[in-house]
């Protein structure tokens, strides 16, 4: 019998064995003498985790084996559990591991000292521990570091070439950062964690522009996490931390992710900063949506951030920006912000604007973006302000050839009623949507319209006349490949609702709500499924039945529910899962196939 694997020389065998995980390496030693010899003599064991807790296990299992790489944390013992560390090639050590514990391990690690990598992570630098950090890590390779409460302007490190990840608290001065990171050429991730409000020095530096070299140009991904103290929510200007991070000369940043609990403003200077990053292509702004808590939120003062003129230099730098995804909550100076975004080579694929309680977002403001990005936009999700948008003409989206998902939702605004000590919903006329059929393209897979009325020609069709709506169906492209398009309109659900002084939505009852919904909901469904089987007859040459159903206010919901199969030939499940505001907002009318 041919001994296949023994054809391979030792070197190749070890290539294969090195791909096995540690347990497999040990387990297959019983296959043959040669395998055992190779694994014992030549194969390395990787990613051994040494802690005080794992010490005994590690010593027993790997103490006599050749260890290639190891990670040490939560470790304080001063004995070395290994006898064969000469070939150790990579050692990652937490900055919290004491030096005497490390000394014992390093004593035999000959190769590590010569050609290997001794890397330290989670090193913490503060004013207080400056000297000990300089002494222990100043000449070593640090790959991740946190800096808190630090104001010194001298650099304890001789070399920060290996630093990849950095966390900075807000209490670190700009000058200190500047001194530290002029040579951190490998920095990839910077996390700025801000607490408790405005950072004045940052603002002044931002304006003076004297800090361009504080961060190296190699940072590619920036994540800013912003936490706000509940008691300080009224402080309006909180842009310091991320503006600071963005503005520290990170010319090669490719992704920017912001997370904030209650951020309310994205000003022009923010976009100016984005615009100055030539390689930036992903901007992700995440905000936890919360119920309005103050009059201050309802009536934000516009123009806090002074509009800046677009200089030629700015336009020049913006021209290199390629934004592909923009999600934001609030555009304070919409027109100027879009002007800046459009100065870039914007190729948006995804546009999400949730305006929260900011007023004044007119859908016409995005027209230049729609025009610019007609070849790329595939996802749009917008909150529509009913006070300034009385009509939505869907034709504005009709030139978006690759649009796959379009969501428009009318959002509600509230005003603080001082006498009643509660928020009262502002009532506006429900915006009217027109020309829906102009956006039904073969790429569209989801269409969701919430809180709108529909124009007469789109909605006023009697149920008896529309099943099936052959004429409408014929307008649909025959090569339509989508599973379904559902237009769900939940109109005025909250018309009779309010929030109490505890900021909870309040309803009379679930039953009342249902009645209101039945009365107020305009359900407008285009439903198309691509079954080749014609449910009303034999097979058809062209895709059939292209069932299109239009339900309007003229169709009473109870009629629909009474005998949906007979009327619609499809089952309809009306989900009202809860009387909580959140769930009702997201409740859906689902259509299932027969």
């Amino acid at each position: 019998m041919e001994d296949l694997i023994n054809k391979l020389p030792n070197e190749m065998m070890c290539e294969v064995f090195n791909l096995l995980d540690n347990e497999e390496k040990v387990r297959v030693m019983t296959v043959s003498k040669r395998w055992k010899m190779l694994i014992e003599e030549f194969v390395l064991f990787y990613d051994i985790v040494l802690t005080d807790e794992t010490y005994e296990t590690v010593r027993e299992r790997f103490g006599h084996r050749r260890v290639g790489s190891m990670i040490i944390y939560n470790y304080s013992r001063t004995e070395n559990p290994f006898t064969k560390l000469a070939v150790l090639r990579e050692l990652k050590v937490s900055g919290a591991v004491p030096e005497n514990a490390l000394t014992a391990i390093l004593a035999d690690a000959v190769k590590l000292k010569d050609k290997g990598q001794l890397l330290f992570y989670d090193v913490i630098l503060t004013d207080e521990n400056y000297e000990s950090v300089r002494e222990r890590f100043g000449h070593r390779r640090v790959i991740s570091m946190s800096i808190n409460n630090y104001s010194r302007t001298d650099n304890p490190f001789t070399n920060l070439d290996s630093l990849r990840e950095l966390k900075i608290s807000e209490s670190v001065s700009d000058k200190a950062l500047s001194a530290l990171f002029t040579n951190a050429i490998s920095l990839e991730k910077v996390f700025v964690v801000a607490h408790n409000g405005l950072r004045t020095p940052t603002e002044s530096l931002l304006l003076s522009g004297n800090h361009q070299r504080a961060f190296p140009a190699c940072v590619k991904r920036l994540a800013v996490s912003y936490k706000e103290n509940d008691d300080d929510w009224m402080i309006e200007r909180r842009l310091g931390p991320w503006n600071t991070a963005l503005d520290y000369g990170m010319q090669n940043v490719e992704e920017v992710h912001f997370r904030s609990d209650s951020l309310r403003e994205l000003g022009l200077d923010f976009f100016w900063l984005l615009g100055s990053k030539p390689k930036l292509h992903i901007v992700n702004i995440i905000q936890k949506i919360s119920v309005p808590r103050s009059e201050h939120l309802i009536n934000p003062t516009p123009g806090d951030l002074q509009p800046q003129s677009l200089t030629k230099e700015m336009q020049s730098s913006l021209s290199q920006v390629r934004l592909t995804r923009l999600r934001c909550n609030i555009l304070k100076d919409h027109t100027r912000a879009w002007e800046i975004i459009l100065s870039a080579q914007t190729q948006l694929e995804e546009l999400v604007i949730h305006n929260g309680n900011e007023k004044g977002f007119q859908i016409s403001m995005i027209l230049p973006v729609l025009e610019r990005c007609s070849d790329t936009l595939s996802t749009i999700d917008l909150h529509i302000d009913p006070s300034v948008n009385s009509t939505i003409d869907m034709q504005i989206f009709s030139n978006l050839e690759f649009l796959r998902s379009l969501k428009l939702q009318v959002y509600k605004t509230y005003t603080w009623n001082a006498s009643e000590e509660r928020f009262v919903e502002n009532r506006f006329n429900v915006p009217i949507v027109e020309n829906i059929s102009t956006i039904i393209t073969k790429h569209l897979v989801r269409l969701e319209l919430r809180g709108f009325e529909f124009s007469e020609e789109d909605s006023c069709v009697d149920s008896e006349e529309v099943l099936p709506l052959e004429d409408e169906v014929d307008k649909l492209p025959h090569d339509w490949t989508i599973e379904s398009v559902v237009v769900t309109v939940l109109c005025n659900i909250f018309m009779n609702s309010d929030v109490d002084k505890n900021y909870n939505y309040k309803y009379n009852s679930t039953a009342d709500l249902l009645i209101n919904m039945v009365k107020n909901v305009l359900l407008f469904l285009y439903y198309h499924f691509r079954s080749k089987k014609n449910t009303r007859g034999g097979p058809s040459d062209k895709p059939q039945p292209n069932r299109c159903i239009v339900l309007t206010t003229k169709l009473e919901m109870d009629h629909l529910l009474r005998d949906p199969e007979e009327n619609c030939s499809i089952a309809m499940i009306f989900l009202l899962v809860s009387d909580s505001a959140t769930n009702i907002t997201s409740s859906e009318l689902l259509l299932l196939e027969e």
Partner: protein
Amino acid sequence: MALVRVISSDGAAFLVSQRLAKRSGKLKTEIETFRKSSDNSEAQPEIRIVTIRAEILRLVLQWLQQHQNDPVLPANQNEQDGRGDAEMGQSQWDRDFLAPMDLGIVMELILAANHLEVKGLLDITCKLVESKITGRTVDEIRTAFKLKSDFKGNEEEQTRLENRWCVEN
């Protein structure tokens, strides 16, 4: 287009572009050596690979052809670590390429890839062999690789007892 003749151990000649051939570290060195020693800059290099038969050489060249636009991986790329990164570079085409091969051919491909210094091919073939080992019992491994136990007396049992923990896990 500059060409090079690559001749297998059993005498089959493969005419390939020098650009393609140079993606093999070994062939690249041979071509450059030929250039330096040849007076005629137009002369076509001829490289004899005495350790690789035609069937295997054809597979190596086929793999190189498919991956001709990939970045060339240095042979010592994983020296620091020792672990391959075969999975990173394995495409559906690679999987289809390897799927019909029996282990004997794969072993020969490993040897050929090593000899010709084709790092990517070496990685995916080693990974394939590794996949034939991982998760299998010792008996299954022996069957797959047509191996016989050569332990004497209670050596095998002794080894198993010493490493009982990895079975218990």
